């Protein structure tokens, strides 16, 4: 945490090493998060570029985050994704986003087959059953490991509201998984 604050202070002074270290530390995570939301590797890459360009502009103008850099970067990425989704309604299936999900590299065991079926059912449910807010909260909470408070800051809602959104999302996924698993078996 102390290192993060020191890095942030150095970056506010436009120290090149600090700015480079921030990119190396957060760019892959931002890309992954953006890819989950927009489902397009090219768009995700462009959004990563925009996120860090905005960060530089903020630092150059004497602004920018003072405490939580990670949350700030995800928040910027979230807004950029939302803006792009308003302009372009293109939504690729989430399978694209999880393209590196290991498929058939080895001869699957029975457990692996079951797990894969469950995973595909989960992805389908996330794409079809959840609202945008629910999907964002689920991704931030369980795939990016943000706390409720951080998620609330990124989404721009109250913590209690985030709790409600999360619980409803999980309930929908559970229900969808149960139905899909019942259908598959």
């Amino acid at each position, binding site marked *: 945490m102390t290192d993060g604050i020191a890095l942030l202070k150095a970056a506010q002074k*436009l120290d090149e090493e600090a700015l480079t270290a921030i990119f190396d530390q957060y760019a*892959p995570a931002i*890309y992954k998060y953006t890819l989950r939301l927009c489902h397009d590797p090219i768009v995700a890459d462009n959004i*990563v570029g925009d996120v860090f360009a905005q960060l*530089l502009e903020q630092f*150059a103008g004497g602004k920018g985050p003072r405490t939580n850099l990670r949350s700030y970067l995800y928040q910027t990425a979230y807004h950029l994704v939302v803006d792009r989704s308003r302009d372009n309604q293109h939504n690729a299936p989430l399978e694209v986003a999880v393209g590196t999900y290991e498929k058939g590299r080895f001869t699957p065991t029975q457990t692996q087959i079951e797990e894969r079926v469950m995973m595909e059912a989960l992805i389908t449910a996330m794409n079809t059953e959840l609202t945008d807010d629910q999907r964002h909260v689920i991704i931030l909470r369980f795939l990016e490991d943000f706390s409720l408070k951080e998620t609330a800051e990124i989404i721009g809602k109250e913590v209690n509201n985030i709790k409600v959104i999360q619980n409803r999302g999980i309930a929908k996924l559970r229900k969808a998984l149960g139905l899909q698993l019942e259908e598959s078996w």
Partner: protein
Amino acid sequence: MEYDPKDTEVIHLLRKLKDSNGAYPPEMLALRRQGYLKQVAEVSAGAGLAVAVRNIAKGGKGAAGASSIAGTVVEALLVVAIIAEAGAVTYIYRDKVTEYFRSITRSPEVEEVASSPVISSPLAEMQITPTPVFTFTATVTGTETLTPATPSGTPSMALVTGTAPPDGDTGVDVQSSASTSIPGSTGSNTGGSSVSTSDPKGNNGNHYGQTPKPERTKNPGNNSSSTQVSSTKNKKKP
């Protein structure tokens, strides 16, 4: 945060999905990083100059960040900028500057003020005579008799003109007014101020009907005219 036991399986799946998600492709990441570093270099260069200016403005309080070389460079840049701006302003307003210097160096001049020539209007000098009025004057001539006599006489018409005396002439006489000047009627009229013709003092010049008769060169008693004489002379010669 504790979750509902029913949701444990869903959350477990989500955690697995997190681990299995895709990473940034290395080529794409390298290109993006390169572009980012370029932006960082540009921003840092601009920020260095800004910091130097800020430190100079603070009077060297925060001089730790700015080197003396940067301060000198900024100072030189400011001087050059001021000179360039002054040159541009001088060039733009060169006419006004020239006029200003001329007004300073020029000695005072005394200018003679001449009154403008007064041009009398010909209309002011013109005396407009009233339109000719025909007056009917009856001259009665006769002798006193005991018996009332009917007046007899010959009426005569005379054109009464402005100021010209009738010159003892009876009958119809058309005279031009002596005081009336008509542009073009006199030979010396040049279109300038009109000068009224002088009083003819009884000499009205040659007018129609007033041409003096030529003197007789023939002996008295000869009734033939001079033209007849010349014609007879011409007849006699052959």
